[in-house]
């Protein structure tokens, strides 16, 4: 884990309003996101974060989870082109990871390792988007 990612993860835990469900990732409040692109992306980023713990361990993923991933991915994707670095790279990675999960989930061939991939991308976004100004 990179120092930046480790710092981001640690910071996320300390942020006011963070929640998590079991072993799921931290879910910060929208207000914890930096103003600008990150704050705009926050609802969709959070939505993706909430789906991670609902992906399960089976090849088959619930349809509502798949729908939420698709909608949230669309939202983040629209922001990538105009985002500045380092937000752009992190958001782009999240879009691609979400796509990889979706393509396998839609074909009922999802594997839990892909959830780990998505979680790492999600946590990278948190590390850059919820850092203090």
């Amino acid at each position, binding site marked *: 884990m990179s120092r930046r990612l480790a710092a981001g993860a640690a910071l996320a835990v300390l942020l006011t309003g963070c929640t998590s469900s079991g072993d799921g990732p931290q879910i910060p409040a929208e207000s914890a996101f930096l103003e600008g692109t990150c704050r705009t992306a926050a609802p969709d980023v959070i939505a993706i974060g909430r789906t991670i713990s609902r992906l399960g361990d089976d*090849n*088959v993923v619930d349809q509502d989870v798949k729908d939420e991933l698709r909608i949230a*991915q669309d939202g983040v*994707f629209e922001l990538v082109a105009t985002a500045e670095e380092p937000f752009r790279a992190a958001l782009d990675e999240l*879009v*691609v990871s*979400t*796509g*990889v999960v*979706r*393509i*396998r989930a*839609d*074909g*009922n*061939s999802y*594997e839990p390792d*892909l959830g780990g*991939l998505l979680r790492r991308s999600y946590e990278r976004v948190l590390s850059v988007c919820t850092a203090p100004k």
Partner: protein
Amino acid sequence: MTTSTRRAARRRALALFAATATAASGAALLGPSTSSASSHREAPYILNDPAVDNTDTFAFVSPNDPDKVSLIANWFPFSEPAGGPNFFPWDTTAAYDINIDNDGDAIADIVYRWTFKDVDKRGTVDRGVGNGGKGTFLYADGAVESLTDENLLFRQTYDLVAIPEQGRPVSLVKNGLVAPSNVGMATIPDYPKLRQEAVTPTSTEGGSSYVGQADDPFYLDLRIFDLLYGGDLSARGNDTLSGYNVNTIALELPKEALVAAGDAAANPVIGVWSTTSREKVRMFADTNSKPGTSPTDSTDQTKDNGKFVQVSRLGNPLVNEAVVPANLKDFFNRSTPDRDAQFLGKVQDPEVPFLVELLYKIPNPNKLDSAAAKKRNDLVATFLTGFSEDVFDGKTFGGLGAGVVDANLNSLDLNAVSPNPAPAEYLRLNVNVPPSAVENRLGVVGGDFAGYPNGRRLNDDITDVTLQVAEGLLLGQTAAAGLGDNVNENDVPFLDVFPFIGDPHSGSDVP
């Protein structure tokens, strides 16, 4: 990065892909149930001419005899087993070919050609009905116990010749017996018996030929054509070809008969593709005044004349189905491998990755930051050059295919006779790679170098391999591992002995 470190890195990467793909395929088997089922009706002209429509071509080292190579080609897609009264005869006016290039010029050095004759007694049967006329609508007059059974009213024979690029044609089989369509249990109670009877030795010592019906061995979900599996890849897992038959030609020969100079050690790689040709002119008789003059004639037959022209072509599966766009598909069917450079652009920038990016926002691999990715050298090597160390280093094929797989596998530049071969779209088989004791359906990307794209075996899961490679597996896009259509095996088992392809469904089988 030096060449050696690059090679080492690529070898590690390939091993990783193989491990990932193997794990993914294993996981897929634990997933949802799959149905127990390349180039079917792929082009606007050929879909109306099914008897000469190539569906698949296979080339592999015979699993029960590594000194021999088996070549299989299929025609007549979606043959419904009960599709009487005429069922699925071979076209007596066409030439059915399996072509071999062993010197790398992308021109056939040997053409194996099958032509057919009808023996049709249906017009001679006297039922005492029809006010004195003769004839029956039935395929047989009772149970058919052998290929020469008098009950079989419609049968076909074939001639097989080997036509060398230089020299005179050589007859391999004269008046061989075709195994008939598997009409149903009342007519054909024991098809496997007829089938083994139809296995005929060739004049080439050690060779065997089989011509007849078979289960369609290709297994895939054709809903890929419904806006890419239902618009979101959700419509997968159904073997669309399950339950259908094809007409098949199988030829097993000693590998020395196929390789250049008969020397498999010096020239181990062959290029293989199948074609069908028709005579150039067809005339429809317009006299419907009286029945045919012979009991074996039909009335108002067509008459074909002129030199043969190629109307169907098939080497690598799915190329003309899913790589070549609809407006060029018949053009591709009429084309020859020596001119395949004209299709380079289509191979380098296929449509499926574009559609996947559109649907899932997974970047098209040609946007990856490497020269090999931008030129899709992975696809070029898979379809047009094959793999070798010289291909990897960019020393042959003008650099096409460089930097992808560092292994002396199946490029014709491995042949002593062809150090600088031409790029061409056909199957490439290294006849010296022994058959695998346990086959991996993903072939080379699954770590099994005896499988596709080193030739093509019946078990190879072409759709999954093609999807994964199209999405950049050979370029390091490990996320592509595991992609597929969720159809992982054929609906009918393959045989352990020649002709290997599965028995055809019977007309008695109903869903």
